[in-house]
């Protein structure tokens, strides 16, 4: 199985996979707890891309994962700025975003935007608020364990995946919303216990690889 490795960028090391010589995909992860729940499947997705000759990079947005920046100082513009700089440095052919990652996937000079189960900021914030409601803690400073400024929460709540020129949207077949393709699989981002869906990872990687090829050819 292809190993994951750390690729240095001006914004710190970025988890990467596959050949660096060929086409590259910039992968934007789901937000908050959803990222942990999807992490293993996204790693399998990147490994399948590598087997198809495609390199990929999975950065941590500011204030998430191992970014080293406290979330309490992060603004939505920081995420857009970070994606712009990764695009300049890694020169991806396509950006692939998962879930709330689609709120930060806009960048110039990209042939196409591929999105899996993209979600609005309003629903992501509502999910966090429900988690806080259900856990019945008195700590109003934290939203489901995350220290975010009220301005950042509001900016996220207003955010939706941007309508871009060339977008392919893939969703689960259980999802009632429209998509270019519906696939079988598990909504891992809701799973209380992290799991993986190897079949879904393969289907998504093949779909993206084929679509990225079409984007590059036209």
């Amino acid at each position, binding site marked *: 199985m292809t190993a994951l490795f750390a690729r240095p960028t001006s914004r710190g090391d970025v988890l990467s996979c596959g050949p660096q010589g060929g086409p590259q995909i910039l992968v934007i992860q789901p937000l908050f707890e959803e990222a942990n729940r999807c992490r293993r499947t996204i790693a399998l997705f990147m490994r399948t891309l590598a087997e198809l000759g495609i390199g990929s990079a999975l950065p941590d947005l500011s204030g998430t994962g191992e970014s080293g920046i406290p979330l309490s100082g992060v603004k939505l513009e920081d995420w857009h700025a970070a994606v712009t700089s990764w695009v300049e440095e890694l020169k991806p052919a396509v950006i692939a975003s998962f879930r709330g990652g689609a709120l930060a996937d806009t960048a110039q000079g990209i042939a196409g935007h591929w999105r899996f189960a993209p979600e609005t900021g309003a*629903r992501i914030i509502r999910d966090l*608020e429900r988690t806080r*409601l*259900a856990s019945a803690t008195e700590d109003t400073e934290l939203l*489901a364990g995350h220290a975010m400024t009220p301005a950042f929460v509001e900016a996220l709540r207003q955010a939706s995946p941007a309508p871009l020129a060339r977008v392919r949207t893939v969703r689960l077949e259980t999802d009632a919303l429209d998509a270019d393709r519906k696939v079988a699989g598990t909504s891992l981002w*809701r*799973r*209380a216990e992290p799991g993986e869906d190897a079949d879904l990872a393969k289907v998504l990687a093949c779909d993206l690889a084929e679509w990225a090829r079409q984007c590059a050819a036209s």
Partner: protein
Amino acid sequence: MKTLESIEDTVRSVLRDVLGISRDRADAFGPETGLFGELPELDSMAVAGLLTEMEDRLGIMIDDDEIDADMLGTFGALVDFAGRKARK
């Protein structure tokens, strides 16, 4: 309009997928099967995912003030709740 049987199937599959419980266990759920407070997998972190996934699959909206221990108490109560919302 969705039938109550198809709503029950949907709620059962949501519980299976969100909580990661086996098909056999989920298929054995009856109206009186205890959920919140009895099912160890259904903790407060899992409640948000469960309700949002129900919204996605049933095309319903659940208000925060509708969420309480009663509607999450048993499988039967959750199916009844989903049925009322979906058939409105």
